[in-house]
C-alpha cells in the first residue's frame, strides 16, 4: 500500500473516530433523557405495582388469619380435653 493511500485511510479513520464517538455520546445522552422521562412517567402514573397489592392483601389477611388461628387452637384444645376426659 502506498503512503499516500494510507494517509487517505488515516484521514478517514480520524473522521470515523470523531463522528463515531460523537454519535455514541449523542445517542446515549438522548437515552439518558429518555430514562429520566420514563422515571417521571412512572412516578406520575404509578399504576399497580405488584408489590403494593400483595402488601395490602397480606395486611388485610393477617387479622383474619389470627382469628382463624385462635379458632383452630380452641378446637384442638377442646379435642385434647375431650380425649383426656374420655380416656381417664
Amino acid at each position, binding site marked *: 500500500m502506498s503512503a499516500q493511500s494510507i494517509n487517505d485511510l488515516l484521514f478517514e479513520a480520524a473522521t*470515523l*473516530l470523531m463522528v463515531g464517538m460523537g454519535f455514541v455520546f449523542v445517542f446515549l445522552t438522548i437515552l439518558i433523557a429518555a430514562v429520566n422521562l420514563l422515571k417521571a412517567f412512572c412516578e406520575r402514573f404509578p399504576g399497580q405495582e405488584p408489590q403494593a397489592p400483595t402488601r395490602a392483601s397480606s395486611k388485610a389477611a393477617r387479622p383474619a388469619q389470627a382469628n382463624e388461628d385462635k379458632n383452630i387452637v380452641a378446637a384442638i384444645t377442646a379435642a385434647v380435653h375431650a380425649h383426656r376426659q374420655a380416656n381417664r
Partner: protein
Amino acid sequence: MEQLAILWDSTALAHFELGQVIMMAVGALLLYLAIVRGFEPLLLFPIGFGAILTNIPLAGFTDPGGLLYYIYEVGIHSGVFPLLIFMGVGAMTDFGALIANPKMLLLGAAAQFGIFATLFGAIALNFIPGFDFTLKDASAIAIIGGADGPTAIFLASRLSPDLLGAIAVAAYSYMALVPIIQPPIMKALTTPEERKIEMAQLRHVSKKEKTLFPLGVLLLTILFLPSATPLVGMFCFGNLMKECGVVDRLSKTAQNELINIVTIFLGLAVGSKLSADKFLTVETLGILGLGAVAFGIGTAAGVLMAKLMSRLTGGSINPLIGAAGVSAVPMAARVVNKVGLEANQHNFLLMHAMGPNVAGVLGSAVAAGVLLALVG
C-alpha cells in the same frame, strides 16, 4: 507394496503440513487455557476443539460438505448465532442499576473510545510492511475494544470474515484477562482518595420502569440507528422477555438452554476459522496487539470520564466505576469492586459498577451500528 503406499497415503501422517500442526497446538493451548486455567472456558473450550478438528488433514471439516463448514455457514456467515447469544444476554441483564442512575450511560459511551482509537491504530499499522488492513478490516479489529464477544463476532462476520478467527480469539482471551489488564490502568489514573469514595445507595426501580426501558431503547435505535437494530433489537427482545414477567418459560429458555446450545456451535464455528492459512499470518499478531491496546484505551477513557464526572458532581462518584464501561459483563464490574475494596474495606462498588457495565453493552452495540452504517 503398492497397497502399502496407498495405505500410507490414507493416513494423516503423510499429509500433515507444518501449519496444521502449529494450529492444532494453538487449539490445544486454548483447551489448556480453558480447562486448566479457567479462562472463559465456555467459549475457549469449543473454539479450541474446533481448531483441532479443522486442521485434521483429509477429514475436510471446513470444505463444502463438512460439518464445521455447515455450522459456520448457518450460524456465523448468516449472523444468526451472535444475535441469538445477544438475546440470551439480554434475558440475563438487569438494567435496574442503570435506570436508577442513568448518567452512567456517559461512562459506557466514553469507554467506546477504545474502539475508535484502535480503528485509527489499525490503519496506522499499514505503514509497517506486511500489514494490509482495509477500513473494513480495521473496523472489525477495533470492535475488540468493545469487550463484547457476540458484538465482535457479528461485526467481523459482516465486515471481515477472513479475520474472524483471530478477532474472536483475541476478544475472548482479553475478556478473560480483564482482571489482569484493568487494575494497573485504574490505579495509575486515580488517587487513593478517589478510590475510597463511597457512593450513595441506588433508588428502588419499579417493575414498570424496567419493562418500559427495553422498549424505549428499541424505539430510539429504530429512529436514529437502524443499522444497530439487529443487535439492540435482539437484546431488547430478550430483556423484555425477562422483565415483563408473563413469558418466564421463554425467558428461562433464552438465558439457559438456548444460549448454551448456541454457544457450543458458535465456539465450534469460530474454531473452524482457525486454519493455518488464515491464522498464521503477521496480521494475527497485529490483531492480538491491537486488541490489548483497545482494551487499555477503553478502560482509561472510562476512568478519565468518571474522574471528570466525579469532579463535576463534587466527589459523589468513584472514578473506578468508569473502568466497567467496557462491557465484559460482569467481569469488569467485579474487578471494579475488588479494586475498590482494596482501597476501602467497606466500599462495595459492585452495584454501582453494574450501571456503566450494562451501559457499555449498549454503547458497544451502538458503536457497532455506527461502524456498520459508515463502513459496511
